[in-house]
């Protein structure tokens, strides 16, 4: 089976965010990442479209996405001072939702920058 190619894809492993990577992929995994460095190659090749993990875990038990979202919302809503933290390995669109989450909860918002 021949591989599909995306040209000039963006690597988000490190802060260089190289945008000249050619990804050779099939339905399940990326087989080759041209121009990527050793760290970027590992990043692209180690993530697959397989379902390796459960959709969600609640108290260590497998749960559906809907249950997990509802539990998360309840726990965060019940808290007096919830913390929203991280946001490094995620997109700006998700980061904006995180800012909205902290705002709506009256909580704390912080990233890796403060470490």
């Amino acid at each position, binding site marked *: 089976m021949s591989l599909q190619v*995306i040209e000039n*894809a*963006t690597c*988000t492993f*490190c*802060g*260089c*965010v190289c*945008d000249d990577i050619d*990804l050779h*992929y099939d339905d399940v995994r*990326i087989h080759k990442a041209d121009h990527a460095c050793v760290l970027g190659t590992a990043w*692209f090749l180690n993530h*697959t479209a397989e379902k390796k*993990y459960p*959709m*969600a*875990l*609640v*108290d260590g038990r497998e749960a559906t996405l809907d249950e*997990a*979202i*509802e*539990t*998360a*919302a309840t*726990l*965060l*809503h019940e*808290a007096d*001072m*919830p*913390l929203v*933290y*991280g*946001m*490094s*390995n*995620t*997109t*700006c669109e*998700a*980061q*904006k*939702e*995180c*800012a*909205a*989450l*902290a*705002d*709506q909860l*009256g*909580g*704390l*918002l*912080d*990233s890796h*920058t*403060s470490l």
Partner: protein
Amino acid sequence: MGGKVTCTLGEVKQRADFIVYWGGNPAECHPRHFTKYTIMQKSKFLPRGRKDRTMVLVDIRETKSAKAADIFLQVRPGKDFELITILRAMIKDQHVSDEQISATGLTRDAIDDLIRRMKAAKFGCFFFGMGLSMTRGKHMNSASLLMLAAEMNAFTKFVAMPMRGHGNVTGADVIMRWQTGYPFGISFNRGYPRYNPGEFSTVDVLVRGDCDAAFIIGADPGATMPQPAIDHLARIPTIVLDPHITHTSRLARVHITTAPQGIAAPGTAYRMDELPMPLKPALKSPYPSDEEVVRRINEAIAKKPFWLPDGRQSPNLWSTQVNQ
């Protein structure tokens, strides 16, 4: 102290003939930084590429990056702030004693030579890494280097740029600045954003046990933070969004598996010079994106009563924010 004299990596590639890496190891942490942007590229202004550029490495030990450097300056651990302050004084011909210089681990000759080269450069750039910003002095070290870069502009063009790791951590700064006015360490507990690192920064909050729930996304504090902080995460309800089951997931009440950004989830990521880059995901993940999950959590919380006790309604910044 405040403000950053900076530029894009494109300008560095085209123009920078004097590059200083301070407390960073790009050879191992940002492997393409040398070849794509800093020392190897030829340009209109630097037609001979590497030969037209000078690279200095300042670090506490000789890392692999030292091989690429023209000059390696080994600063004594914890003496970065002192060395930067000495440079700030000596570029202005102020007196610095031999004792003060030797405390940094460098010689007067080495510092004189560095200053001569800095002033002779056409376009200088400091890249500073976590060896500067996360050791003794922390943000004061970064601030003093930014001041040095600004003050060098009395003599020649000089800029400074942090070497950001962790994918889109630059994007987090940019988004928080856009949405709240502050880059990190923010509290909304009065209904409007307030900024105070040390009080609202995560490690401090966790070690003191100030928060009573945690929502962790795109990070694994369970593997990286000091033990008292991890202990507190295990005590309180923690919610984790990650493409993998992480250390933090194991101590969390809720883990939700999400699609990895840029591989199976679309969106935008910021480069370290604050240029936004569109992501081009190749795979279709069985998992939802972070964006979708956080939006759905926001929607679920919006259905519950607002947190202010007097029943005042949410100011709803989050639903009326500008969407450009």
